[in-house]
């Protein structure tokens, strides 16, 4: 097990629990999708796994070691993090940006060496965005900057990759590209934890899924067992149709018309 979360609970103010009693585990090469409505504590859980926030109860273990006992750079050598979106203030080039992923491998007073450049180049090649190397991140489209952020996380050489809603602000084409990239990385042996608002994406790549609702996991297990009409209704408060579409070759989740919205009917 690369990731073990045991009975984790967290609260910002010591009174209201953001989440409690969360237990998860993840092997190398496995993809776990974390579902749940906005504000249920998915991002908080991620920060606790990264040891940016400290758990009040329970423990997070990475490769058998408690993150609470690890130094920041030790965590960063194991866990790569891809945030939802990057707000660029300074127009770093993609290469400079991806090089930053080498930080946990570079000592405090040092700068990237030849080897670090090679690793950065590898990360570019691995997800096929070498052409973006010189482009400034402030001039990139959402899809491009998403890929560059994944490349930066790969430059860390992590055994666990955590993605916070990697597809949320992308067009459908880029959504599928990102999902395909995630699938390929998992096939290479990286464990992947991703938060997502798209249950169908979980079907595309996940080995397992978990649903967080009101700070607790209401379901956890194989994607087919977790992503069901009943669980989705509980999680999102709307009725959702879960269907295998033969033509598309995948299972999709479509919310039912909730209130008789006046869409055009097609026979």
């Amino acid at each position, binding site marked *: 097990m690369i990731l073990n979360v045991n009975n984790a609970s967290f609260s910002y103010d010591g009174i209201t629990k953001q989440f409690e009693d969360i237990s998860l585990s993840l092997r190398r090469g496995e993809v776990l999708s974390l579902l749940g409505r906005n504000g249920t504590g998915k991002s908080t859980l991620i*920060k606790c796994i*990264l040891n*940016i926030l400290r758990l009040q109860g329970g423990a997070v273990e990475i490769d058998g070691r408690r993150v609470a006992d690890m*130094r*920041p*750079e*030790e*965590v*960063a*050598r194991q*866990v790569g*993090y891809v*945030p939802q979106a*990057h*707000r*660029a*203030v*300074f*127009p*770093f*080039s*993609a*290469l*400079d*940006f991806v090089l*930053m*992923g080498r*930080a*946990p491998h*570079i000592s*405090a*007073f*040092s*700068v*990237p*060496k*030849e080897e670090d*450049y*090679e690793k950065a*180049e590898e990360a570019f090649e691995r997800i096929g965005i070498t052409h973006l190397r*010189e482009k*400034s991140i*402030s001039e990139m489209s959402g899809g491009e900057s998403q890929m560059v952020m994944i490349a930066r996380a790969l430059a*860390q050489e992590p055994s666990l990759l955590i993605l916070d809603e990697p597809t949320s602000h992308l067009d459908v084409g880029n959504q599928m590209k990102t999902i395909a990239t995630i699938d390929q990385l998992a096939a290479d042996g990286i464990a992947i934890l991703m938060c997502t608002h798209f249950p169908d994406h979980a079907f595309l790549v996940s080995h397992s899924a978990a649903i967080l609702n009101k700070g607790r996991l209401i379901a956890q297990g194989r994607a087919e067992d977790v992503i069901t009409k009943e669980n989705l209704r509980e999680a999102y408060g709307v009725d959702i149709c879960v269907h295998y579409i033969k033509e598309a070759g995948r299972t999709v989740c479509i919310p039912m018309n909730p209130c008789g919205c006046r869409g055009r009917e097609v026979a």
Partner: protein
Amino acid sequence: MTRGKEPTVEAGQEPGESVTINLPWIASHGGMPVHEAVLRFIPAGKAIYLLPVALFLFSLFFGRYMMDPVETFRILVIGSVNAFFDGASSLLSAASGQQVLLPSFEQTWGASEQTVVFQIRLPRLIAAMLVGGGLAIAGASFQGLFRNPLVSPDILGVSAGAGFGAALGILLSGNPWVIQVSAFFFGILAVAVTYGIGRAIGKGSTLVLVLGGIIVGSLFSAFISLTKYVADPYDTLPAIVFWLMGSLSAVSNADIVAVAPPILLGALCLYLVRWRINLLAVGEEEAQALGLDTKRMTVVLIIASTVITASAVCISGIIGWVGLVVPHIGRMLVGPDFRKLIPVSAVIGASFILIVDDIARTLTVAEIPLGILTSLIGAPFFAYLLTRKKVGWIS
């Protein structure tokens, strides 16, 4: 020059080099043709390091007391060697207990030239470079730390604090040493209070730090006004006003000896962590996820920048604009990577103050305060640059 692109150069061509724009350790990086790599290796990025040297030599003979360039360099070189031998002689004499006289070159120039070069211009030019380079580096680091290109080194209140310290010193004593020490002390104190507010309210969040800086800055500005209000309008008030406008006219060799170590130490510190400033500049949370101890880094940047700024301000008075704008000029030249930005900012800042100080001491019979000129020259120049070149943060 292209941002972030490093040249392909044979490894070991310039081993052990410390202050360069393009470090030659990326041997097998990129597939650039050799001539392009060589071209990339020589120009703009490196030539800029010669700028302050050239300006320094020029400023040494240039002034209202105009000197012959060749003669000036002779005085500088031979005079320095003589001074060195003098020092060595007295040191050896003291050590061995008997009179030791090392040979020295004959002084072929007058006492007034000697004074102009060694007592007046040399300390002043060194001060100009220390202040300009120091403020520019501190500004660049703060812009990275606060992820905001509109930040200047006095964002945490160091200038207001130092200004009050100086005003208080002028009011109570008038002794230049007292004024400088008081300025330095209150500059540091102001930032310490700001940091305390930041820790107490915002748990070290940079936004609360900036707010704390605004609070402390306006508090000390009020104190400055108070000292002006109670000051003698014929004597201490003008002294306070002129001090606040900034000037290098009174800088002595002793001042340099006092402020050079803290400025250089602070600068070295920022230079060493320069690449890690990149991480902070992309966002605190992302930096943490990349394994950076952001709290410690923040403290390091604040201490180094504050020591630099307080030291600079206590010999020069308040000189605005340099710390804000020079990093922008640096980014236009070498891009946002702090690896290059930190050294380039230092060089541009030093050059800028050298030029402005040359103008300040030669344009009119009376000296023009430096703080006025930096803005008077810097502002239009920056506006011009903005019209000429695309800047990343203006989309």
